[in-house]
Structures are given as structure tokens and as C-alpha cells.
């Protein structure tokens, strides 16, 4: 069975990883690969694996494992690697605090309160869901307003339903997946309301989660009022204009007992804020170098802590790199420092990593602000690549070879996505 409690918690580890979801598990493997010997992987839940256990649907692993898996299968494969790799896994433990000298304070249901020194630290705590408060929907405050991730936990792991008649606000992937899930559980899903003119989740989820079950998707429409003194009794929805202002003359009411929110994720950086890191105001995660190192020496960040991903496969890939870098750091190896800063330009929201080095190849992750077809991504005048389309909900991944970066002689490289022709 898949547990790996350390027999004895040491006072010092080469690499300590906060969070044993897909990011943390891949980082652990990366650190092991690069020679770190004592590696501690920590998770606050009683089992490692993270949010994947509740993502019971298909669609994971095509890139990382070369086969389509469900979330739990993906988690279990990663966890098996971690266990086979001899990595100490400490669950039921929360990293409560961290110092710039990389001493971590652990709060553990099994170990009590412990201090642990780390040669390198990887922040892999994942993300949290945006809540009602973040978007200020007006109305009463009944029970029955919950995030899609919490609903997923209730349904898939606990066998409880969040309600009988559900309205979904936001078309993020978790919301779409849950629309299908709830329908299969006999819940009436009355519609998905999305304030943007396009869906926020992957198109394939719109097809297989909504179209397959005749669930309406209302674009450019939002919830303007929640009713119900005790339990939700209904919502008012209204179309919005380009400035997202609701047109109340075209508003209508929907009777429901549940409002499920799928309005985005925010990098979880409670712990990161305990040390004086620099954050990217756009990703809201720590600024990272091409080795996924934050602005604190020996502290690395990856996965949804650094920026929100849409595919776990990319989380694993990015985190493997962070883990390798942490392993190298802990064993005294340091690659040459970055010499180029990437600056988001036209139709680019952000780039991660925020800096790169011209001495090696990089994978650069980025997002665009608005959909565009037939476009070109341009890195200054050193590199360009044609893309059939870009879409804000889909991360753009670019492999950038050193030979192109070596042609650049400045320190700030602008990245634009522009229409062709």
C-alpha cells in the first residue's frame, strides 16, 4: 500500500519539499536524480497525491506518461516513483513557517511541532480557488454557494451531493468537469454562466462535459444576485456588455438550490510570504529564474505556486526541473546565472520563468490576453514561431534553444504575440 512515513524525522535534509501533489512529487524525483540524498516530501493531508485524488476523470498523463490516465492513476504512478526512489514522505504535516536560512517549522499530526533545516526548499503547495468574496456577487448569504473543487471533494471522495439544482458560475475546467459529474449523479445542472465571451476551460471539456449532456453555456452572462435567507433559492443572471456591465433589462431568474463557482485559481503562497520573496503581480506567484529558483537563495517554486497551469503534465515537467535545480543547489552545484529578462509585450499576460540564460535550452510557459488566430509569437528579433491560434485558457509552451538566445545582446527580451499578415 502506498504510504511512506519516515521512520525517524531527521533535523536536516538536503531538499525539503512543501506539498506532495504532482508538483512536489515530480520535484522530489528531480532532486533525487541530481544526487540529493536525504529528501523530505511533506503534505498536510493524510495521504500524498494532492488534488489529483479527487480529479477522478480522464485526461491526464498523455504527455508525461504517454498514455491517458485518470487523476488518481496519475497520482498513484507519481507516488510509486517517489516511494521506489526512497524519498521520505511525511503526511498529516503542514509547513507552518520558513526562514530565509531555510529552517522550516513543521506542524504535524504525527510528529508534533518540529524544526527542520533544508539544503534547498521547493515550494509546491499548489493553488486555491477564488471564492464569492473575490468577485463580490451581491445578494443574500445563504448556504449552498461553494467552489467547484469543494463540490468535487464532496461528490467524488465523500459521496455527498452539494445540492439538487445547481447553477455554475464560471467555465473553468473544474466547473465543466463537475457539470458532467453532477449530471451523472442525478443532479440537475441548469446552466453554466460565463462573464467572458469565451469559455475559460478547454474546448474538449465544453464538448464532452456540456454538449454531451445538453447543459447550456451562457457566454457574456453573469450572476448579479443570489437569493435565499437560509439555503439558496435562486439567482438572477444578466448578460454583460464589453465592459462587463450587466444589462438588467435583459436579466432573468433561475430557481436553484446551489451556486457552484468555477472562477479561477490563485497560487497558494501563504508560506512563501513568510520570507521576503519578490512576487510577479500578474501570476501572483514568486518570480522565478530559469532554474525555478525564487529570489530567495535555495528556495525554488513550481507548479501552481508559480503560475496556474491547465495541464498536470506541464506541472510535472516544470517541477522536475525545479527539483533537479534544488538537488544541484543542495549538492553545491550552480548553473550560470540568468542574463536575460523576459518582458511580456503585445497580447502576452506573463512568461514563466521570468528570466532565462543564453547558455542553455529552456521551456517557456506563457499566457495570452485575448484569443487570436493565425498569429506569430516573437521573441524580439531573435526568434519567431507561427501558431495556428492562441487562447487565454490555454497555456502556450515554447522550447527555446540556446543558439537563438545567444543572438541577443541586451538584458530585456520582449515577447509579443501578433497577428500574421
Amino acid at each position, binding site marked *: 500500500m502506498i504510504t511512506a512515513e519516515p521512520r525517524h524525522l531527521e533535523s536536516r535534509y538536503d531538499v525539503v519539499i512543501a506539498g506532495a501533489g504532482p508538483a512536489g512529487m515530480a520535484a522530489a524525483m528531480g532532486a533525487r536524480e541530481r544526487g540529493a540524498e536525504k529528501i523530505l516530501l511533506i503534505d498536510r493531508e493524510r495521504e500524498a497525491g494532492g488534488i489529483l485524488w479527487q480529479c477522478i476523470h480522464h485526461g491526464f498523463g498523455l504527455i508525461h506518461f504517454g498514455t491517458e490516465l485518470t487523476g488518481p492513476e496519475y497520482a498513484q504512478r507519481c507516488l510509486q516513483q517517489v516511494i521506489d526512489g526512497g524519498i521520505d514522505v511525511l503526511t498529516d504535516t*503542514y509547513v507552518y513557517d520558513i526562514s530565509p536560512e531555510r529552517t522550516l517549522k513543521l506542524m504535524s499530526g504525527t510528529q508534533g*511541532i518540529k524544526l527542520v533545516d533544508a539544503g534547498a526548499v521547493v515550494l509546491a503547495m499548489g493553488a486555491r480557488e477564488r471564492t464569492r468574496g473575490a468577485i463580490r456577487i451581491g445578494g443574500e448569504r445563504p448556504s449552498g454557494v461553494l467552489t467547484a473543487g469543494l463540490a468535487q471533494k464532496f461528490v467524488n471522495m465523500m459521496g455527498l451531493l452539494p445540492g439538487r439544482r445547481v447553477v455554475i458560475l464560471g467555465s473553468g475546467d473544474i466547473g465543466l468537469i463537475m457539470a458532467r459529474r453532477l449530471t451523472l449523479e442525478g443532479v440537475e445542472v441548469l446552466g453554466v454562466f460565463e462573464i467572458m465571451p469565451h469559455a475559460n476551460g478547454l474546448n474538449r471539456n465544453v464538448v464532452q462535459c456540456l454538449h454531451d449532456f445538453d447543459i447550456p453555456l451562457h457566454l457574456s452572462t453573469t450572476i448579479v444576485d443570489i437569493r435565499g435567507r437560509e439555503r439558496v433559492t435562486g439567482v438572477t443572471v444578466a448578460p454583460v456588455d464589453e465592459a462587463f456591465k450587466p444589462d438588467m433589462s435583459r436579466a432573468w431568474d433561475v430557481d436553484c438550490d446551489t451556486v457552484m463557482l468555477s472562477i479561477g485559481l490563485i497560487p497558494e503562497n501563504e508560506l512563501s510570504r513568510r520570507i521576503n520573496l519578490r512576487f510577479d503581480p500578474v501570476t501572483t506567484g514568486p518570480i522565478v529564474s530559469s532554474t525555478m529558483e525564487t529570489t530567495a537563495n535555495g528556495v525554488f517554486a513550481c507548479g501552481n505556486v508559480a503560475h496556474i497551469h491547465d495541464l498536470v503534465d506541464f506541472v510535472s515537467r516544470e517541477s522536475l526541473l525545479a527539483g533537479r535545480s534544488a538537488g544541484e543547489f543542495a549538492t553545491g552545484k550552480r548553473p550560470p546565472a540568468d542574463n536575460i529578462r523576459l518582458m511580456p509585450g503585445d497580447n502576452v499576460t506573463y512568461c514563466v520563468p521570468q528570466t532565462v540564460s543564453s547558455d542553455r535550452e529552456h521551456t517557456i510557459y506563457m499566457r495570452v490576453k485575448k484569443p487570436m488566430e493565425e498569429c506569430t509569437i516573437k521573441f524580439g528579433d531573435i526568434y519567431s514561431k507561427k501558431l495556428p491560434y492562441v487562447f487565454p485558457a490555454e497555456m502556450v509552451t515554447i522550447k527555446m534553444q540556446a543558439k537563438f538566445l545567444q543572438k541577443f545582446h541586451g538584458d530585456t527580451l520582449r515577447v509579443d504575440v501578433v497577428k500574421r499578415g
Partner: protein
Amino acid sequence: MRYDVAIIGGGVVGCAIARALSRFRLRTILLEKECEVGFGTSKSNSGIIHAGHNGATGTLKGELEWAGNRLWDKLHDELDFGFHRNGELMVAMSPEQVSRLEHFLEQGRKRGVTGLEIWDGDRVRREEPALSTEIVAALAAPTAGVVNPYEVCFSLIENACLNGVELAVGMPVRAIRPMAGGGFDIVTPERLVHARYIVNSAGLFSDEIARMAGAGDYTIRPRKGEEYLLDKRLKGLVTRTIFPCPTPQSKGILVIPTYDGTLMIGPTAGFIDDKNERSTTAAGAEEIFAAVRRFCPGISERDCIAEFAGLRATIEGDDFVIAPSKQKGFINCVGIQSPGLTAAPAIAERIVAILRDEGLEMIENDRFQPRVGKRVRFATLSLEDQVRLAAEDHRFGRIGCRCEQISEREIIDAIHAGARTLDGIKFRTRAGMGRCQGGFCSWRSMQLLSSELGIPMTAVTKRGGNTWIVCERKAKSANEGGDA
């Protein structure tokens, strides 16, 4: 069962009265219609202990604001709720407003309020650098403070019950019948309560309670206040409670550094008709953010983590009514709006005096225990204490709520102290009150409520009544998910 006193309404005023009466050898019961105390107006109170200079001279409000203010240190020492005197600044944006500040300074000094000073704009910004450069002066009042109003209710009632008061929650009063030989029969859906005296502290519904007993003809008009809670990241932006220069209608829209380190902004003030309506509105949000940005420009909608609305119980004439009624033995506390929280301990003392005047024999309870057991706030302890406690009980080592860093043991303690609902846990421990608003921890808190209280998950509610959270896959019967 015959009681000497029945208190109707378990908001902060009712709880303070219950606790004050528990010093005497009386059989006292508190009847609360909600499933926990403090779940009405008190829960959504701003939590300000007013400095003492606000209420006009000659009003009961003015008198009890200052009298109440002075009682909070002792109460805090005995009852272990969050309270500190952070001080307030009433800011003037124009020379005309400075003369208003002088009026309040004078009003306060006459009453004996200590430490009042008028600061010039430079001093204001030296002390509170986030405030606008357009502020020309401020009245500083170090006697002002902040509390967690719900915690106050919980602590007061916990102590009152420790000293023999009976608490009956989920007990709405449907009728009150004055008896021929004195005393009253109080009818609730579940039981009939007989009491010699009634104290009406029913807040928004105190007019209806008074009318049921033929004890006065009041009309409570609910005045709604929306409040917005901002992320803890802004902790320390201001340290004092910041008031604009008040108008005769309202104390205005404030910036309140809550005891727990979040910033709260609000409230709005608009009359509504419905005593159960607590909606927030886009217009309310707009009004509040625009108003506070005038004197504290760094505040943004982006930092909002939660919003809520509360209702003030206002009456014609606008002053408190704390007096015996024409119905012998029935004492009214009606129209207790701001500064009702500040005044609550003084209101309770006044009720004790009134009951004595009305003929209730008050014999000191020599076994009165003024303190409640200290609640462990794990996150605030020293490393040594944390290590020791977690070694003693592993549930101290297990995180319950991450955003507020509450241990699982603290949540269990809250349930043992009377929490019956998710809101009951939230307002006792702060679990679920932070950034994720319960997204991460509510399922676990529900499991703990379920196991500690021996109820199914489907019977766990947000705040009692029909506020169920989850249901079973199978068809749900009509009354499933009812009050825990």
C-alpha cells in the same frame, strides 16, 4: 419550570445581561431563536468599542457609551475574547470639518473621556502614513478599541452558563401571556416557560416581543449596513479605526483594523423594510470603496475576501430605551443600535438596577466564578508552548484551517464550547474566515461536527434552520438537513 428572569434575545446585550444576572442567586433563562447566540445583529457588528465622545450630551446613548467603554478592560481580562484599544482617528478633510472635530472634543472632555487630542495633518500622516494628504486634521481618541463581537457573545454566555444561567437556543418566542398573580407564560414551539420577570433584548424583534406582552408600542426600522472584509495582506495599513467626520445621520463609512488583523470597511446605512434581509449590493460596494478611498487611497476592490450585511435596530427618537414598561415585571431594551456593543456591559448593569428597583431580590451568588477557561490560540503561542501542547495532544499538531492557522484541536474545543454549526466554529475559532473562505477546511470541520456531535454530514448546517450544506444521493425527504 419557573424562572425568576427570562431574557429574550441572545445578542451581545442579552448575553451581557445574562452574565450580569449570574452574579446573583437567581434562576435565569436566556431564550434565543437562532441556533447559537450572537447570530443576529451582533455577528455582523463592526466590532468597534467607541471612544466615549460620540453620543450627544443628555442622551442615554452618550451616557452609556462612555460608561460601557470603561468596563471593557475588566470584561476582557475575565472573559478571554479578542479586544484591544487601538484608538481611533476622526479625520477632517476641510476647515469646516475641523470645527466639528472641536465639537466632539468638547463633548468628550465634558464627559471625562481621557486622552482626546486634535492632530494636524502632518501628525496624522506621521502616525498613519497610509492616510490621504488631503486630511487637514484629526481628533485622536486612544480610548477606542476593537473586539470580536461574536466572541464576546460566546464568552459572556459561556460564563453565564458556568454560573447557573440556562441557555435555550432555537427557541423563538411565539406568545407572552402576563399572568394574573404576576409573572408571564412564555410560549415557544417546544416548551412553555414561566418567568417572574422578562428582559426584552430581542434586537430587531424587540418591538414584536414588547407588543406580545402589551409592554409598549415600538416600531423597529432595520437599517442595513454592508461591510467588506479585506485580505490580511493589508494588515498594518492603518492601526487605528479611521472615521470620516460624521454627519447627524451616520458615523459614516470607516476603515476598521479588526482584532484579527484583517481590515474591514463600511458600513453603509440605508433603511429597509424586511428584518431578515441581509443582501449585499453592487451599489453598496461602490459607495464604500469610493468613500474610504477619499481618506485612505491604498484600498482596492481587489483585496476584498468577503462581504456581509447586518441590520441595526433603530427606533423613532433614535435613543436607547432601557426601562420598565407599563406591564409590571417586563423590562425593555429597545432600539439598541450603535453604540450598543460599546454600551452593552453598562446596559447590563442598568438592567440589574432596574430589576432591583422593580422588586426582584438580588442576593449575591458567593460562588460566582468571573472567569472562563483560557481558550488556546495555538498560532499565538511561543514555540516552546506549541511543542509541549502538540506533544500532549496530536490534534494540536494537525492543521485545521490553513489561512488562519487554526489547529484541529481548537476546532474540537469550539464544538465542546457550544459550536453547533460551521458558522459557530468560524466565529469561535476563525476557521473558515480567511482567504479561502472555507474552501479547504469546511469539509473537515463538517466531519468534526459530525463525529463530535454524533450527527450525519447531511445534518451539519451553516447556521441552523434550513442552511444545509450537503445532501445524500438518494431522493431527499422534505425536512432533511434540518437544524443540528
